[in-house]
């Protein structure tokens, strides 16, 4: 092992958002935005005398994930109690699964193949568990240390979680991020979880550098955060080693707002969970019939979908792989490509422009899709193909649609179209030449200096000129001058 080899393993917790109710009681799974402690019942509050009853559908969802990840499904679903005291845990034990003493998780083994810069990498899955989520703790003074006490909301307690644990197969933060993105996509395509919902996917990462002590980082909420947190932590560890220090084996907390990890003092005595099989939940057999039923109705998974899209729409493997990362984006693409034609253009619009604006302005995908609807995309395709807008203006249209919900048709009506007519452009070029004699002589000597002149024309037309044509006209004029 080289001195700086990075080894990373992940523990991902995903809420099974596709279920309508919690894992062991009939409370709604739609707990977000509800006033605190209004989505609870005696069972998920852990009142004296209550008992858990398993959600049938949860089993099917777990099986679907196991099939998609090629894991070996256990013959029985066995639940254990995992004991620790914490205000967000109503029974002071969590109903979960274990993998020792003959007790088994839902599934073991399996793998996910990811594409890292053109190279294929297999990430091995260690196990898949079903377990219940906890409540949420908030602090009245907004900061932990400023508050004399805490506040607990149990609306989330009892929500179904899937825990997916990988082997420590990642060698860089980027690989970990790519895996998490792919996993999110698989779960979305399976209709198991919508990981874009707040708190729906949480990752813990175990990272060690150069074979030294392993540090666990908790509280990571997105693939992007994962890459950031891991990069930060690796740098932190390298710095410690460089200055002659020792890396302690510990648990740290990722603080997103500050971009750092800090030591976690919570949950001391964590090691002693005193697992034993939950006597209130006898083992549930997983029959071959049930597995077959789930297998036969598995939806199209990202890898197959990417291959099909690349083939069917001719957009190329890379574009296809980006499209399948978000199921709804991909659904939108297919819908628009079929309705509007020109799939290459549609995919380019969505991936190169649409996603960029969503990102920069932090707009949710669902909102973006409403604003850049299929109807609007079709209009864009038409306008482009007819030359009403240049590629540059097309991009502008997309921006206006996503950021300001503007319809392309209205923009055209306002006259924000490409000026492509040669006459008009020649006149403008002549104007610019007159106004910038020095630039003209520069351009005569150095062809690259043309860009300044092009820019001036674009400025005059407020970007509407077709830059390609402007470029040609300027070159011609210069050629005329030259001779």
């Amino acid at each position, binding site marked *: 092992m080289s001195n700086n080899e990075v080894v990373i393993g992940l523990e991902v917790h995903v809420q099974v958002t596709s279920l*309508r109710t919690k894992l062991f009681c009939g409370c709604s799974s739609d707990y977000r935005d509800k006033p605190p402690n209004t989505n609870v019942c005696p069972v998920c509050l852990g009142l004296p005398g209550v008992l858990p009853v398993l959600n049938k559908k949860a089993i099917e969802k777990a099986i679907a994930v196991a099939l998609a990840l090629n894991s070996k499904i256990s013959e029985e679903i066995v639940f254990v109690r995992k004991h620790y005291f914490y205000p967000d845990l109503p029974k002071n034990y969590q109903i979960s699964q274990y993998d020792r003493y003959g007790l088994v998780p839902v599934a073991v083994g399996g793998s996910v193949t990811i594409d890292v810069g053109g190279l294929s990498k297999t990430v091995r899955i260690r196990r898949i568990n079903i377990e219940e989520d906890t409540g949420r703790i908030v602090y009245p003074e907004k900061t932990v240390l400023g508050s004399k006490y805490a506040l607990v909301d149990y609306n989330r307690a009892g929500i179904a979680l899937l825990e997916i644990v990988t082997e420590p197969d990642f060698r860089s933060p980027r690989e970990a991020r790519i895996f998490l993105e792919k996993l999110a996509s698989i779960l979305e395509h399976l209709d198991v979880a919508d990981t874009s919902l707040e708190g729906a996917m949480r990752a813990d990462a175990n990272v060690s550098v150069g074979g030294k002590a392993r540090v666990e980082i908790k509280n990571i909420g997105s693939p992007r955060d994962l890459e950031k947190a891991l990069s930060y932590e690796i740098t932190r560890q390298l710095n410690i080693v460089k200055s002659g220090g020792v890396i302690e084996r510990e648990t740290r907390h990722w603080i997103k707002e500050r971009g750092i990890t800090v030591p976690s003092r919570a949950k001391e005595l964590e090691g002693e969970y005193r697992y034993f099989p939950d006597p209130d939940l006898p083992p549930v057999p997983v029959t071959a019939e049930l597995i077959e039923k789930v297998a036969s109705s598995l939806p199209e998974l990202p890898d197959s979908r990417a291959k099909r899209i690349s083939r069917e729409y001719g957009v190329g493997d890379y574009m296809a792989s980006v499209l399948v990362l978000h199921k709804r984006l991909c659904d939108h693409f297919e819908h628009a490509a079929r309705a509007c034609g020109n799939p290459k253009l549609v995919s380019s619009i969505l991936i190169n422009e649409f996603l960029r604006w969503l990102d920069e302005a932090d707009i949710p995908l669902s909102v973006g899709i409403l604003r850049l609807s299929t109807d609007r995309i079709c209009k864009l395709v038409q306008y482009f193909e007819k030359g009403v807008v240049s590629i540059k203006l097309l991009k502008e249209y997309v921006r206006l649609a996503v950021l300001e919900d503007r319809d392309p048709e209205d923009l055209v009506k306002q006259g924000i179209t490409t000026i492509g007519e040669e006459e008009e452009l020649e006149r403008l070029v002549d104007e610019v030449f007159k106004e910038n004699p020095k630039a003209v002589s520069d351009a005569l000597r150095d062809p690259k200096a043309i860009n300044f002149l092009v820019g001036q024309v674009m400025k005059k037309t407020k970007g509407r000129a077709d830059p390609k044509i402007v470029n040609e006209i300027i070159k011609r004029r210069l050629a005329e001058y030259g001779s």
Partner: protein
Amino acid sequence: MDWSKLVKHVSDLALVDLQKGEVEPLIRDLEKIVRMINAVNELKISDDVEPLYTTFFGDVNLRDDVEVGEPTNIKDVCAVKERIEGGYIRSPRTL
């Protein structure tokens, strides 16, 4: 067998404290009881005996994924009204 250490460890795990006067009598009782339960160690049991964790042998009840019942009003549960703040339940700090 260091009983005091054991009792301290277990009472930290279970978050159950003992008053000063309770520890000695407890240790005496624990010694007796542990000796009694250690009787199971006398038995030689082959590895292929499956442990019995439940005497329920029917079809395990499962639930359909449909909402059932009315949500509980937290005020009906938490007798001490002062503990509820804006619908939340007050708890001690965790850090």
